[in-house]
């Protein structure tokens, strides 16, 4: 990879890998980069991707990066800009989780992932040295697949406004990491963090034509991620290429023994090391349940095209079955709301966040505060979760769901006897129109069908751009392919995706005007 000559205009076209080189070879400074991306983000604020930007703080971080580069103490990604999904708590930026409940909330600490990508934990191991551009919009408490559930006003817009898909600003970007996907796709940041509970990294990546990966549950610390569903939430990077995702993921993973009991004792890994490996003889499992009815023709044809591309590269396609794919919808929508209903009980107006202005007594304060603070989708899930855990229903719903969850995980282990990775669509359709499904929650839930099974099993999964819709209605909308690996096979997934991106240029495509 050669670094192109750096005209300022081109800075935002460089990948993370290229920016690392440009910075270390002093072709550009961290401060120049930071202000370039801040300017560009301001110019495209109409997309509603950012919810908090603080130029002074970003520039100060960039100056520190330049100092570390000068003194030869540069971190692995020193000076490269990044932006964080607003579900990660941050000391220097407001953290809202897309909710009225946390309007203006200031966390006294940084999420572990934020520290690891940034300057590191004070007094602890140094971080990768990335510079934070700001916080990115998302569905309220990461609940949603269209980013239409955010209650927070994006930068430069006085009121809550939808996040728009750069490929068609009348369409949703996907969710819940919609702001992250849009910021990367519109090149307002070279890379961003996201979180994935039931597909919240993979689906928006697919809808916005970028690359994103969700690692094995427990590989990245959950400390400092505002909790949605504890047994499903996982952090991951979103960028334009698999190589860039590998660079960020290498810095994000590793045990957080002091802060997170669910983080696994699996050492951090250099995910770029195996990127070039051949896919010759790779066995790609193709689950028939991922290609049934309800799958848009454009998606089916495009994903099939990508699979043929892999065959050209020497991979073998193996038909497999994930028989409980459809069951994963009710199972997920029982487990996630159950955990969420409990995780969101701390939002009671006592210690932090919103408190109702008028109430008669304590009980009334709780109810008014929570009814004002939570949006409709969050309330729906709290209601579902409270109900399935309540007396007399626990066994029939929550416990039953956790048992089927194991069956789903076992299905994957059987499948991996016959294949190395599993491939299929990320979502049944391309990004839909703003408002199209906003008052039909169940329709939104059904659209998660292909990402839920991997989430329930805690498996690593990623999305990479493999083409565009051609039908009149959806013309030009990006289509992503999902890769699912066995536990701790992130390196393999990134390698498989990287080889595809070396042979194709869908990942390099640019939305008109961005």
């Amino acid at each position, binding site marked *: 990879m050669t670094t192109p000559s750096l005209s300022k205009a081109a800075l935002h076209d460089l990948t993370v890998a290229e920016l690392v080189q440009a910075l270390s070879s002093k072709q550009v400074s961290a401060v120049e980069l930071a202000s370039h991306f801040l300017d560009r983000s301001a110019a495209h604020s109409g997309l509603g991707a950012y919810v908090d930007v603080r130029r002074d703080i970003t520039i100060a971080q960039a100056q520190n990066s330049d100092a570390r580069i000068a003194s030869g103490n540069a971190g692995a990604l020193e000076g490269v800009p990044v932006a964080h999904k607003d579900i990660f*708590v941050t000391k220097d930026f407001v*953290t809202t989780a897309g909710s009225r409940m946390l309007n203006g909330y200031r966390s006294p*600490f940084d999420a572990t992932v934020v520290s690891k990508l940034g300057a590191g934990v004070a007094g602890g191991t140094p971080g990768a040295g990335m510079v934070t551009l700001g916080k990115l919009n998302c569905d309220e408490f990461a609940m949603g697949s269209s980013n239409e559930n955010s209650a927070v006003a994006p930068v430069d817009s006085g009121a809550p406004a939808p996040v728009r898909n750069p490929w068609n600003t009348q369409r949703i970007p996907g969710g819940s990491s919609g702001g992250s996907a849009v910021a990367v796709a519109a090149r307002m940041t070279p890379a961003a963090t996201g979180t994935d509970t039931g597909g919240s990294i993979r689906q928006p990546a697919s809808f916005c034509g970028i690359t994103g990966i969700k690692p094995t549950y427990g590989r990245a610390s*959950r*400390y400092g991620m505002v909790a949605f*569903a504890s047994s499903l939430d996982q952090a991951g990077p979103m960028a334009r290429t698999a190589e860039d995702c590998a660079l960020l993921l290498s810095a994000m993973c590793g045990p957080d023994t*002091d802060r997170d*009991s669910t983080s696994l004792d699996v050492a951090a890994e250099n995910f770029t090391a195996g990127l070039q490996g051949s896919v010759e003889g790779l066995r790609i499992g193709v689950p028939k349940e991922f290609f049934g009815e309800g799958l848009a023709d454009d998606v089916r044809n495009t994903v099939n095209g990508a699979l043929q591309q892999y065959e050209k590269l020497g991979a073998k396609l193996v038909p497999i079955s994930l028989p409980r794919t459809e069951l994963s919808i009710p199972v997920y929508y029982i487990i996630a709301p159950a955990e969420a209903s409990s995780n969101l009980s701390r939002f009671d107006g006592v*210690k932090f966040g919103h408190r109702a202005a008028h109430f008669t007594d304590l009980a009334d304060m709780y109810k008014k505060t929570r009814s004002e603070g939570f949006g409709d989708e969050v309330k729906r899930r709290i209601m579902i979760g409270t109900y399935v855990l309540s007396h007399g229903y626990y066994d029939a719903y929550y416990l039953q769901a956790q048992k089927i969850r194991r069956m789903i995980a076992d299905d994957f282990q059987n499948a991996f006897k016959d294949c190395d990775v599993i491939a299929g669509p990320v979502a049944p359709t391309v990004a839909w129109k703003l408002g199209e499904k906003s008052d039909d929650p169940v329709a939104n839930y059904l659209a998660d069908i292909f990402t839920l099974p991997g989430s329930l099993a805690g498996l690593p999964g990623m999305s990479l751009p493999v083409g565009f819709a051609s039908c009149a209605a959806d013309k030009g909308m990006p289509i992503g392919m999902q890769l699912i690996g066995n536990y701790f096979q992130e390196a393999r997934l990134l390698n498989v995706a990287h080889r595809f991106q070396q042979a194709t240029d869908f990942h390099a495509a640019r939305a008109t005007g961005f």
Partner: protein
Amino acid sequence: MSQSNTPILLDRPDAPLVGGYEVIIGFETHAQLSTQSKIFSRASTAFGAEPNTQACAVDLALPGTLPVMNKGAVERAIQFGLAIGAHIAPKSIFARKNYFYPDLPKGYQISQFEIPVVQGGLIEFFLNEKKMSVRLVRAHLEEDAGKSLHEDFVGQSGIDLNRAGTPLLEIVTEPDMRSSAEAVAYAKELHKIVTWIGICDGNMQEGSFRCDANVSVRRPGGPLGTRREIKNLNSFKFMQQAIDYEVRWQIEQIEDSHKIQQATVLFNPDTGETRAMRTKEDAADYRYFPDPDLPPLCIAQSWIDEVRSHMAELPRAMAARFEYSYGLSEYDATQLTQSLALSNYFEAATKVCGQAKLAGNWIMGELSRRLNNQDIGIEQAPLKAETLGALITRISDGTISNNAARQVFEVLWEDATATVDGVIESQGLRQMNDTGALEKIVDDVIAANAKNVSEFKAGNEKALNALVGQIMKASKGKANPQQVNDLLRAKLR
């Protein structure tokens, strides 16, 4: 939260009845574990700090925080399990108990529900020299809540979360107690065990050891009555008062043919009455489910063995040893192992005098009487164990009589600098062992009391005692009573 929903009631024909009713009591005790840091955070557990200065981000449930388990708390749970002969679960589960309350920062309490860490076990103790035992259902780990302060805020309460996250061991019994006296004796024994093994400081004023009593009454052999739970009994005195009041109240209700409603009640020490708490209408539905932030707690046998190897000798084992190696009765042995300090005192004194039984009697008699009078612990006794040992030696070697020993004890108690032999000499308490001198006194007394002599010879034993008394008087108590008896009988034969 009571775990024993369908208790196997012990048949207790010996159970004392109150107005013809059998009293049935079960206990739930919250013992704060003596760790430095909290159960799921690294904040300090020290008592009495400025409000919320020891409530860290995790304790406040700030967004993004997660629990990380304190090994010290688990270790203490294992110690307790070993101390009461319980089963220690190789795998136990933390669950969330969901309810809203201002002193509960997360909106749920992390506790253990279906699978607790300590299962079963037995607490044994004496009540009026009668051996009793209470079966434990379980003991589980959980986090304490914060405190609501109602004073100094008009129409508002202040929330201090310093206590939030302090490790608790909740110890639940079967309903095996049949009187307030039994209940208090059980609570005292439990208090003894947790302080003896050092897992809890036992400070009831500071709330380190809080008892809830489940009380119900029934006609002997009749169906179980509805129980009411008396919360937060933080002194043994109140415990007895509260239960007695509650029992009388329940019996009155039944006698007036009112139904008892299951309720949680508080004891008011000022009025001496219990009153029902304001019931939360949905309190019943805690929506327990395994905490997804905490994988199962796994305890390997090797860890249990290691903890056992570091544990001090337990009261029950020590009492058994006292019976075996000192020939004490089970009752005496138990009395002498009421606290580590007491048992240490006993062993130190015995080491000096080699008279375990005598040492035991003096400690349980004269010594404890004086300790009680002055309301001080054995640690503060002005008379050290070694000194008592020396005193007992002088009794057993015949140097002084028991009565004289009491006088010596008196002096030693008041004057810490005094020595046993010093006092014996200065007070001239040495027994008269010079037979010649004694014989003279005996002869004089016989001569001077012809009446008693003849009565004795006529078969009136009492008359002898009168003579003995005269002789002891004449010898200013220095004569050895046994010796006097023998001499008299010899001369009057």
